[in-house]
């Protein structure tokens, strides 16, 4: 059976894939799906803080804008940040892990100790420090998250490479005169892909949570960007009366992170049977 077919037989993974699919579609088609697409920037102060109704499914915010429309547009920011930040982390972490694992000893030691340094401070703390230094913007959030999260992939690929290095097929390739680069990229890397894919799915969830926390602390996209974390912090002063204002973005974050975690679990079961813990 195809990989996708096997993945879809796992109920959790199927739900995760569905959620992520919807997220991507929403992000792409937000201008057409949103009932009030102009509300990303426009405001109608006479309609402010209206509870959910037929016209405004998730109510309106402090500016009288439609919360539902803004949530849909917020999906764009969330997915942009997560995809680029995780992409950059993978692009930095994987080669470092590969080289460190392959050359071992000194080079490996130095590279891994460098990643240890980044792991020695909690991700959220490092990301806050970097984002604050650079100033609040989506680009800086992406940069902060990329600098913060690369060691996770470096560690993972390092461990896998170390385990694979002594295998017969690697020795065979080396004996045939393959260059180090060729052995690493064509023989070792493909065998670490499963682990990388699983880690990437779960990493997307973690990155989205950290990005939302940065937005909440005012370090994300500046207003009036409909960023979910920022929306929650804006809603704070209107609680508990305007409960829908904070509930909607909070649930959006929850659903999306849940989607990536479910998919990650499913992928692990399908791709990496040796990691399949007690299923």
């Amino acid at each position, binding site marked *: 059976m195809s990989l996708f077919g096997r993945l879809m037989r796992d109920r959790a993974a199927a739900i995760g894939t569905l959620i992520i699919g919807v997220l991507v579609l929403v992000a792409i088609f937000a201008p057409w799906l949103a009932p009030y697409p102009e509300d990303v920037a426009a405001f109608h102060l006479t309609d402010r803080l209206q509870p959910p109704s037929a016209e405004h499914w998730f109510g309106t915010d402090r500016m009288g804008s439609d919360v539902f429309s803004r949530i849909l547009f917020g999906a764009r920011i969330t997915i942009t940040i997560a995809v680029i930040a995780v992409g950059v982390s993978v692009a930095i972490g994987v080669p470092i892990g590969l080289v460190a694992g392959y050359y071992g000893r000194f080079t490996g030691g130095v590279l891994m100790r460098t990643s240890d340094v980044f792991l020695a*401070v909690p991700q959220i703390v490092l990301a806050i*420090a970097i984002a*604050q*230094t650079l100033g609040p913007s989506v680009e800086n959030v992406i940069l902060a998250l990329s600098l913060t999260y690369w060691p996770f992939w470096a560690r993972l690929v390092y461990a896998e490479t170390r385990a694979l290095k002594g295998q017969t097929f690697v020795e065979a390739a080396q004996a045939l005169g393959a260059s180090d680069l060729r052995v690493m990229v064509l023989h070792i890397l493909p065998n670490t892909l499963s682990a990388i894919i699983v880690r990437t799915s779960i990493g997307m969830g973690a990155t989205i949570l950290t990005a939302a926390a940065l937005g909440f602390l005012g370090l994300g996209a500046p207003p009036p960007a409909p960023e979910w974390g920022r929306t929650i912090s804006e809603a704070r002063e209107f609680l*508990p009366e305007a409960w829908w204002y904070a509930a909607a973005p909070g649930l959006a*974050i929850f659903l999306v992170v849940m989607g990536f975690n*479910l998919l990650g679990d499913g992928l692990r079961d399908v791709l990496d049977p040796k990691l399949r813990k007690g299923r």
Partner: protein
Amino acid sequence: MRRVELVLSRLVWFVPTLLGLIIVVFLISNVVPTDPARIVAGENATQAQIDALREQMGLNEPLIVQFGIYLRDLVTGDMGRSLYTQREISSDLLHRLPATLELTFAAMILAIGLGVPLGVISAIRRNSLTDQILRLLSISGLAVASFWLAMELQMYFSTRLGWTPLNGRISGFGPENITGFVVIDSILQGDWASLKSALSHLILPAITLSLPAAATLVRFTRAGVLEVVNSNFVLYETAMGFPRSLIVWKYVLRNALISTVTQIGLVFGTLFAGAVVVEAVFDWPGLGTYAVQSILQSDTKAILGFSILVGVVFIVINLLVDIVHTFIDPRVLK
């Protein structure tokens, strides 16, 4: 002897890792476009006053010299003065550390108390409805944004129901400071009113913080128990007619906890980090609130001090986890 070797080999890396950490954080915090001298001098200062302050604060030295001076002072425990509170940063941090540790430990106790038993139940009732629900809950627990959960809990339990205080650590003056942990100090002095106040302030932030940790522990304990339950010695004990509960809660759990203990160490780290955001919502007077304030004030040296302290706590915890690991699973020494 292998144990001593292992610990020593980890200790050798302690100083370089810490030094690397200080360099990275120092570099990051020195890219700040704001001028600390301008902040100290105040809004009405003349350019000449600012220049004098820059000289006095050593800001005109090359970065490497500034770093050397910082390192020299750091060795003696001097992290400089906070631009914001005007106090010694090291004393600010030490003053606030107990509040964060109290919150972290409370969350840790909740997480272990919930996570480990639920993980065992989930595993021995594998694939039952209970298991399905617990697994759904544990995967949900990892997906909730803590600051959002904090706000929602505050809204229902504090604002609507009035069961718990909205924020802060204690009402009134509290007990006399002995350990810095308000709960323990209240018990030591038999001050039950303070104890009640402290616990009611502690409960919501602790629950918020513990949720993802509890979820992680459920997942790891479940996996660990399932691995052990299928091993030969359990089959043997079952054949010998040992009661099921004895097998599960004593023999299986002890073996299953190996991975869980490692996980508890890591969880402590994530709790300590998660406290930054949770503290900010509940106005908890700990390190997290201090860090967020310093960041918003561009208080470079305070951020630097905070990051170094957290880094040290992290490295020490990881070291302890490694050592504990050698005792509960001597196989790693081979």
